[in-house]
Structures are given as C-alpha cells and as structure tokens.
C-alpha cells in the first residue's frame, strides 16, 4: 500500500517531533511564566507528528535519513533518523504519555516557585528520549541515552533542598554511568569490527552482523578479526547499559531512590519511558547477542523480576512498592528478550507503560491531596506511607477506579492489556524451558511465583489504601470531617481516565483472549509458535491462583480478619530491607572505593611527592657535604700553603739579628756546610 506521505514529509515530521521539545526546553527557561503552555504545546506537536509518522511508517518499509556530522580518516559518524516499526510505536508511546503527564503536572506543580524549571527539564527529557528512539546510529543513541540520564538527574533532584533527593540523583546518574561505560565499550567494539555504527547497516536487512561469523574462536567481519570472546563481551557491554538504564540487578538500587523526585516525573521517566529505553536498546541490537548473552539476560531478568516482586510485598511507601513493581516488570521484559520473544518484550513494554504510568499518577493524586493536608495543618507525617491511607475508595472515587483498573492490568487478570502481554512472556518462557529441559525449568517456576507475588503486592496496596478506614485522622487525632480530601481537579483526572482506558485489552487486540490477534504482538511475531498446550494452560493456572491471592489480600488488608505476623522472620526482613543491597553497596563498594581513593592520595603525597622531597633532601645533603669539602679541603689547601710560607718567613727572619758577628758566623757555617757537602759527595 502506498503511503499518503512522501518520505520527505515524514522526515520533516520526525524533525518536528524531536525539535519541538528542545525548543520548548530553551523557551521555557526564557519565558518563565509560559513554561507550562510551551511544554504542553510542544509535546502536543510531537504527539501529532508521531501519530502521522506512525500512520506513514507502520508496517511499511524502513525509512532512513542520514547526514554527515563528523568525518575522519577511516570512519564517520552521521546524524539521522531511522524510522521503522519499533521507532514509531515507541515515538507514539512516549509522546502520548508525555503529553498526559505534562497536563497532569500543571496541577501537580501548581504551587512550586520553580515550576518553569520543571517544565523545561521535562521538555529536555522528552527531547532526549525521542532522540534515543529516532537516532539512526548507536553513537547518536549513546548521546541521547546519556542526555536522558542527565534529564532524569535534573528531575530527580528537582527539589534540590531535600538531602535525600540530591543523594538519589547522584546515585542514579553514577549507576547509569556504569552502564554507559559498558555501552561505550560496546560501541568501540562494534566500530572497530564494522567501521560503522549505523543501526540499519549493522542490524537491518542483509546486515553486517549477519555477514560476520565465528570460526576457530575468531570473530571475523568484513573489516577485521577479533578473538571470539569479544563478541560475547560486546553483547554483555550493551546489556550492561540496559541493566543500568532499566534498573536490573545488580544496578537496580537507584530506581527506588529516584522516587524522591516529583511523582509525575516518576511516572513518566521512572516507570513508562526512560527505564524502558534499556529494553528498547536490546531490541534494536538484538541480532548481536549470542546464546551465552541471551541466557544470562534471561537469568538476570528472571532474578530481578523475582527479587523486586519479593521486596514490593513488604514496602510501606506507596511509591516504593510501585518502583519495585517497575523493576520487576522490566525484569519480565528483559527475560522476554533473553528467551528471544522480542514481540512479547515490546508488547509488554507498551502495555506496562500505560498501566504503570497510571499507577504512579493515581498514587500521585493521593500523595498530592495528602500533601495539601500536611501543609494546611503543618503536621509532620509521611504522605507517601500506606499506613496513613485507607478507606480512600469513598473519598477519592475516580482515583480509586483508575488505580484498580491499572492494578488488574498489572496483575494480568483477563480482559486487561496485562493479561495479553504478560501471558505472552510466560508462555514463551514455558516453551523455552521445555525446549531445553532440566535446570531451565527453574525459569517457569520462578516466573510463575513472581506473577503471583505481583498480584498479591498490588492488591495489598489497593486494599490498604482504598479499603477499610481512613487511618490519618486517628494518627493526627483529628476528626474525619476536618481532614476532608477529594479527587483533584480535571487537570489531573482527565489524563488518568484516558490512561485507564488503555489498560484494557480492547485497544491492543480484538479478541481479549487471543494473543495472536494483538496488532503489536502480531506484527513482530513472525514465527507464530504458540500452538501447543501452553497458551491455553498457562493463563488459566496463573489466574486461578491470582484470584485466590486477591481474596487473601482482601481478607488481610481490607477486612483485617487475619494479619500476617511473620515480621520477625528472615524473609520478611530480607524483603523489607530490599535484600540489603544498599547496605552491601555502601559498605563493600563505596567504603572500599573511598578507602582506595584515600590510599591513592596517601601514595601521591607520601610516595611520589615523598620521593620528590627525598630527592631534594638528598641534593641538599650532598650540597652540604660539598660545601664542607670546599671550605675545609679546597680552601684549606690554599690557605694552608700560604700559612706555611709565612711561618717559614718568620722563622728565617730570626737569622737577621742585625749583629755583624752573627752574619759572619752564618757565613762560616754556610761555607762549612758547602765544604762538608762537597766532601761527602
């Protein structure tokens, strides 16, 4: 089918989509009063352009625009856009969610003095994120990748007076930097082997990766040879980048801390878009990975998913629960990439973006309203703690409804988007394990447990926050009438209602039980393998137990008919303390690093500089010795001979007594001695 748009028009739309947020960033800083308007208008423009690009590119041949940027002797780097299915679906997703978050933020940040900065940073983020998606070569991806991290740094630390916030943004940036170093090394490997970083050339149709091969432990490409292990290293390096960005074990600890930023930011950046960039990157360069890397990927994804879900079960901070939930869900996506079901990964990325963003925004509404109470009464309580909430179902009905909609999607109950996408991953994992057998059955086992944990923790939040009695009045010792809270105004409610609609399967598939009918999944899944018993059995057995767990959570947290009293057990503590990763890193990495830096400084001061000082001291001592030598020996010789001569003269002077007869005697003696001398000779 011929597109109604020419490639040139599409190029211009892509240019608009990415430059609009950048201009908004600059103009927001200049025209501070109109920052919000500028931000919304620009991202709206991006959204419209993305929509057009989606129509023009989806399921059509890849478009690639490229312009010279840097040209050196044996390689060059271009600036350009790569428009394919993956690009446009991500573009649409990012610009759409960013638009909603922008609108939501108007109300959320209304009282902040520096909100122009907030909108400027948000626009910068959108620019960078769209750049990651649109970039046509990995060098450019890296550039935007770091800029995304930078924007995230700015936004996490937006309230820079909060100690915790600035600690968190430092941690986030540095942990991301660890991944970036990996990414950079990966770039160097690819550049050396292929002399180009162009994604289309490397991974597209008839790509360079396919033309390279490993033989006799040598990785051969059209441009060079390397030992074969560099292929695995390259894979692991890019994966390291994804691990950091997508907050996977072992670099996941920055994401829960990043919740110190404004909630709208957490929802856009740390739930829906930026953290998904890691998965996106893996999808972009998927052909690079060999089996070793893929299996490690699956293992890390699985472990992260399980670990984060187990932590989320006990957290009392609502945003922390959602943060660990994000980590867990990203683990699912990485797992999907690892088991080579890319379609499931991208599908889950999209559905997750909607419901996780919604969860954060809805939580943000609760926090926002509680925060008002806090300011109004000048009370000091944690407005993010689940312990102060409860019974909000009646007070904030819209919030309640959208939160539940997102929760069932997260839990993967039938008729929701999560049901389709998560089950796609589960089925793939089952089939993947079935092919391999043996120890690989750990994967389906753990992944099932993780999805039950997911159901449990999210419904724990639902029941704790929205059912039962509102606990805050008791804590503050006030009546419920005084502490009246309601749903916030339309700036906040409309975006969340729109997002809530996307939690349902209908937007993604006409048959809510048939994965293959999903347009996103179907378009990637070029080898439909879900034909055995797994596609039917897996959803059933997951969901049956899920319903049981929901019922249990309802009894425990809404009705309070029973309580879990295992607070002293080791697994409860492990979960509550987030598996002690932070303490471990603080003690074993940061402390040791700081000790090392001290040691280096000591070495610099005492050894190197000490050596210099020693050298100068030695020279000073030598010079003292030569000075002594000069004074006493050289000068002494000269002075001594002069002294000798003068003493001799004084002695000889004694002969001249002035007495005539003495002279005669001397004369006689001299003559005599002369004669004696002559006689002896």
């Amino acid at each position, binding site marked *: 089918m011929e597109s109604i748009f020419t490639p040139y028009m599409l190029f211009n739309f892509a240019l608009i989509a990415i430059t609009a947020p950048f201009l908004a960033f600059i103009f927001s800083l200049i025209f501070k009063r109109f920052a919000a308007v500028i931000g919304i208008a620009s991202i709206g423009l991006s959204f419209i352009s993305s929509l057009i690009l989606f129509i023009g590119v989806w399921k059509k041949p890849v478009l690639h625009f490229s312009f010279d940027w840097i040209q050196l002797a044996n390689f060059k780097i271009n600036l350009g856009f790569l428009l394919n299915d993956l690009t446009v679906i991500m573009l649409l997703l990012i610009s759409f969610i960013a638009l909603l978050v922008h609108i939501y933020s108007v109300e959320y940040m209304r009282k902040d003095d520096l909100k122009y900065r907030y909108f400027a940073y948000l626009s910068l983020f959108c620019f960078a994120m769209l750049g990651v998606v649109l970039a046509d070569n990995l060098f450019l991806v890296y550039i935007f990748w770091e800029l995304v991290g930078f924007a995230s740094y700015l936004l996490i630390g937006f309230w820079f007076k909060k100690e915790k916030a600035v600690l968190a943004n430092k941690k986030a940036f540095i942990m991301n930097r660890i991944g970036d170093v990996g990414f950079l090394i990966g770039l160097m490997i690819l550049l050396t082997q292929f002399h180009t970083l162009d994604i289309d050339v490397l991974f597209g149709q008839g790509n360079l990766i396919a033309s390279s091969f490993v033989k006799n432990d040598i990785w051969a490409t059209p441009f060079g040879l390397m030992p074969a292990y560099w292929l695995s290293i390259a894979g692991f390096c890019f994966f390291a980048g994804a691990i950091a960005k997508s907050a996977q074990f072992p670099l996941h600890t920055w994401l829960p801390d990043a919740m110190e930023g404004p909630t709208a930011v957490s929802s856009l950046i740390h739930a829906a878009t930026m953290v998904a960039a890691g998965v996106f990157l893996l999808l972009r360069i998927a052909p690079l990975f060999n089996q070793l890397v893929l299996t490690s990927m699956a293992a890390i994804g699985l472990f992260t998913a399980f670990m984060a879900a187990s932590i989320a079960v006990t957290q009392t901070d609502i945003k922390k629960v959602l943060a660990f939930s994000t980590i867990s869900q990203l683990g699912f996506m990485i797992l999907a990439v690892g088991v080579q079901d890319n379609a499931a990964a991208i599908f889950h990325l999209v559905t997750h973006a909607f419901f996780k963003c919604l969860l954060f925004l809805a939580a943000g509404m609760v926090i926002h309203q509680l925060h008002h109470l806090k300011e109004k009464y000048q009370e000091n309580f944690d407005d993010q703690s689940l312990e102060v909430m409860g019974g909000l179902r009646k007070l904030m009905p819209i919030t309640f409804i959208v939160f539940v909609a997102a929760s069932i999607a997260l839990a993967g109950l039938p008729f929701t988007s999560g049901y389709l996408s998560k089950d796609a991953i589960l089925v793939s994992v089952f089939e993947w394990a079935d092919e391999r057998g043996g120890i690989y059955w750990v994967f389906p086992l753990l992944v099932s447990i993780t999805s039950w944990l997911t159901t449990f923790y999210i419904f724990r939040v639902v029941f704790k926050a929205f059912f039962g009695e509102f606990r805050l009045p008791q804590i503050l010792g006030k009546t419920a009438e005084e502490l009246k809270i309601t749903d916030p105004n339309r700036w906040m409610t409309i975006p969340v209602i729109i997002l809530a609609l996307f939690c349902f399967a209908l937007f993604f598939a006409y048959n809510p039980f048939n994965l293959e009918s999903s347009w996103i999944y179907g378009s990637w899944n070029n080898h439909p393998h879900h034909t055995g018993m797994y596609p039917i059995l897996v959803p059933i057995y997951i969901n049956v137990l899920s319903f049981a767990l929901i019922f249990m959570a309802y009894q425990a947290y809404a009705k309070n008919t029973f309580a879990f009293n295992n607070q002293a057990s080791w697994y409860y503590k492990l979960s509550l303390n987030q598996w002690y990763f932070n303490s471990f890193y603080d003690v074993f990495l940061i402390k040791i690093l700081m000790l090392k830096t001290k040691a280096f400084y000591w070495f610099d001061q005492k050894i190197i500089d000490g050596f210099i000082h020693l050298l100068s001291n030695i020279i000073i001592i030598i010079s003292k010795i030569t000075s002594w030598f000069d004074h006493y020996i050289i000068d002494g010789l000269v002075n001594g001979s002069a002294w000798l001569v003068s003493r001799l003269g004084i002695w000889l*002077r004694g002969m001249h*007594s*002035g007495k*005539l*007869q003495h002279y005669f*005697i001397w004369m*006689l003696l001299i003559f005599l001695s002369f004669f004696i001398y002559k006689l002896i000779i």
Partner: protein
Amino acid sequence: MIPLQHFLFVGATLFSLGLFAVITRKNAIQILMGIELMINASILNMAAFGKYDKVDNTGQIFGLFIIVLAAAAVAVALVIIMNLYKRAKSIDPNQTNTLRG
C-alpha cells in the same frame, strides 16, 4: 827550599786566627785587625802559589793588588768605625743592630 805545605800551614793558621778574632772580639778595631790577618793569610798563599807561574808572576802581582786594596779597605773601615762611634758612642758591634732585617 821550604816546601809549599809550610807556607800553606802558616797561611791557614793566620786565617784561622784572624777568623777567630773576627768572630770573638768585642772591639771593632780588633775585628778589623782579624780581617787584616785573614787578608794577609791569603796574600801569603798567593805568594806561595806564585812559584808555579814563573813567567807572568801572577801570584805576586795579585799579592801586591791585595795589599793595596787592603790598605784602602782599612781606611774605609776605620772611617766607618769612627762614624759608628759617633752615632752609638761605642765600637762594640754587639751594641748595634741597625743591620737587622
């Protein structure tokens, strides 16, 4: 004939006596006399050795020269001694040390 050795013995004795006088006497005149003795000893030797030169008689001629010179020298020396006496009121050479360097 008197052998040469006799002359030389007498000359050496005379010279030694003169030298002794020069070194030991406390009177400038006596020292002068000692000098004269030594000069005469040398004249004696000159005359004695003159026998080996019978053609030119250089020994005798030198003896005559020395006599004349000695007479002149004595004259000068006596004047010096007189001047010395004028200055130092003494002719004891031990009393004067103006020659001292």
